[in-house]
């Protein structure tokens, strides 16, 4: 079988060449590959997915607000990507291990992150606000693509332990240009590691369209490494759940890695430092707004009579509560003592750093009790 570039397989124009179970208008449509994986999904489960996505969107809104109010140094919005994040994360087992990028607020939420876990890193208080071994989530990665190798290594560890967990790597379309992502696929394939790659193709790597990263759909690359892939509608939370269940089952049952390209859209800026009006037009954003993951699930829930005003109010209140807790955790976070800047560089004593610590401590002691003057 030969894979070649063709004019019809274009990563930019073929955004509807995807597997999905819910259309943009919320109609449930059949799909032979995805249907078997969601036969058990009932209205309650769909309502839970809706609740998750609503809370994640509220987390995102609050994050942007906190940044605009000067409480956070930066925020990386995920509005528009709730479908792939919640859908895939809900398919994971708690003992699976996730290696996320910095934009995966929805994955963190589903994994059980606390309100403060969303703000303290962006506030600059900590590099990672949670214990990776509590959530089974690695500290979110900023170097795009580096975490894909970590996930493969972790999966190789699972193999050696004879366990049936899966490692999942989340990354964006921009990361697929990185050597690390390609090396990760080589290693995963060569060692048949139980790892699932989840590429959220949100169309833009800061200002660069996905067409700069490749002229062929990203999911088309994985088969070249010997890794089966699915290209799905990332704004369809049900399809995302189904695809991830397929991928996880594939990896868990010893068949090796699997790859998902979730075609989605980042509705906001890359980060709060970015101005997307400089590089993309309003019409495009509006076209994607019509494919919104929340409104389409709401439409579907209404069509099966599973969405009423009580449910909507309950979900909205839960989201507001979470956001309020986020804000409270953010505002209440005390900055660490100055000497804390030297903590945790090494696990064991390091004479050079220990000497610097002693010198810095002596310097700080020179301020005596005058805490105000302390730097």
């Amino acid at each position, binding site marked *: 079988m030969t894979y070649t570039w063709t004019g019809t397989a274009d990563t930019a124009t073929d955004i509807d060449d995807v597997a999905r179970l819910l259309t943009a208008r919320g109609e449930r449509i059949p799909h032979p590959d995805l249907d078997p994986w969601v036969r058990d999904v009932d209205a309650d489960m769909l309502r839970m997915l809706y609740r998750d996505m609503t809370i994640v969107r509220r987390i995102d809104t609050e994050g942007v607000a906190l940044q605009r109010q000067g409480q956070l140094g930066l925020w990386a919005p995920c509005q528009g990507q709730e479908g792939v994040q919640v859908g895939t994360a809900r398919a994971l087992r708690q003992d699976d291990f996730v290696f996320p990028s910095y934009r995966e607020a929805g994955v963190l939420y589903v994994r059980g992150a606390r309100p403060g876990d969303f703000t303290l890193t962006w506030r600059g208080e900590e590099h990672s606000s949670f214990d*990776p071994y509590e959530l089974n989530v690695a*500290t979110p990665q900023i170097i795009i693509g*580096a975490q*894909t190798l*970590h996930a493969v*290594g972790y999966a190789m560890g699972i193999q050696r332990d004879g366990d049936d967990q899966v490692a999942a790597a989340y990354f964006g379309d921009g990361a697929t240009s990185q050597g690390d992502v390609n090396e990760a696929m080589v*290693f995963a394939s060569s060692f048949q590691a139980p790892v699932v790659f989840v590429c959220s193709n949100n169309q833009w790597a800061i200002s660069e369209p996905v067409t700069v990263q490749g002229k062929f759909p990203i999911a088309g690359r994985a088969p070249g490494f010997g890794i089966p892939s699915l290209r799905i509608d990332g704004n369809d939370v049900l399809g995302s759940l189904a695809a991830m269940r397929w991928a996880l089952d594939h990896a868990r049952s010893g068949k090796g890695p699997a790859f998902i390209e979730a075609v989605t859209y980042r509705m906001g800026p890359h980060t709060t430092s970015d101005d997307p009006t400089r590089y993309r037009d309003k019409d495009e954003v509006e076209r994607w707004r019509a494919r919104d993951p929340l409104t389409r699930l709401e439409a579907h829930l209404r069509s099966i009579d599973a969405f009423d005003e009580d449910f909507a109010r309950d979900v909205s209140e839960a989201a507001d509560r979470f956001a309020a807790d986020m804000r409270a955790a953010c505002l209440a976070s005390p900055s660490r003592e100055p000497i804390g800047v030297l903590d*945790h560089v*090494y696990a064991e004593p390091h004479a050079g750093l220990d000497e610097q610590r002693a010198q810095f401590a002596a310097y700080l002691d020179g301020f005596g009790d005058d805490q105000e003057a302390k730097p």
Partner: protein
Amino acid sequence: MTSMTMAAAIGAGLRRAMKDDPRVLLMGEDIGRLGGVFRVTDGLLDEFGAARVIDTPLAESGIVGTAVGLAYRGFRPVVEIQFDGFVYPAFDQIVCQVAKLHYRTAGRVRMPVTIRIPWAGGVGAAEHHSESPEAYFVHTSGLRVVAVSDPQDAYMMLRQAIASDDPVVFFEPKRLYHRKGDVDLDADLADAAPMGLARVVREGTDVTLLTYGAQVLTAMDVAVAAEDDGVSMEVIDLRSLSPIDYRTIAGSVRKTGRVVVTHEAPREGGLAAEVIAGVTERCFDYLEAAPARVTGHDIPYPPAKLEKHHLPDLDRILDAVDRVLDRPNSLTGVER
């Protein structure tokens, strides 16, 4: 005691560490069937199996990056970078991931990754096979960096590096791989000198000569030659490049008052600059002369036929010894 080459001693250290701890595993290019291009891992595949002696794809970032994931999972990976000049593709994973994850996670994630690097020149190798990248790693907080210079020390220090909960960049001078020495294979780790200490390999009273790696042997030759000139050299093998053992160094300098530092790596921003700054801060009042450094030139590593002009040799170091003793030397009368 068994007489063996340094390559064999390092292999024995790997074997011992793998026996002592089932979470230790090896990764690298050609380390399995071939036993490594220097045969350091010879026999380990047969002994421990492919799950623990992993022949990897030819991708250095992949090797180190997957080791990060294995460490997340609680393994203690020992990776072999086939040659010094091949470590650069893995630089991001080493300095941004391996070095930082403990700090980034406030100590919740440990990275007990040992990165073995066959290192430095003097073996007539092709381009990219004789680099001295140690300063890059010493400059990276979160890493420990060591360089070995004899079989017994290599055997013990490698086991210490693997047992350490911190990541260690472990430099193995290719020039010494085939040099033999006595190794006590039953030596207890608890009895070994800590990994962070320097070692006085020859005592003397007039000049302290500081170096590491294969240059330790050159330094010993210098000490013998200087003795004929009536100069008593104290030679110190730094062993640990991060941290640098200034306690041992300062003790020596306070005795001799004169310092020469030599290494193969280029001069600018190199370890000699760091060591001399550290010595000056601690021992300024004891110094009888400005410290001198004898290093590789600030050039890309030269072609093999020219490398003897790049590597600091006996005569260039003796010239620097003359400088710190205020004897006539090549820089006498030269404006600096």
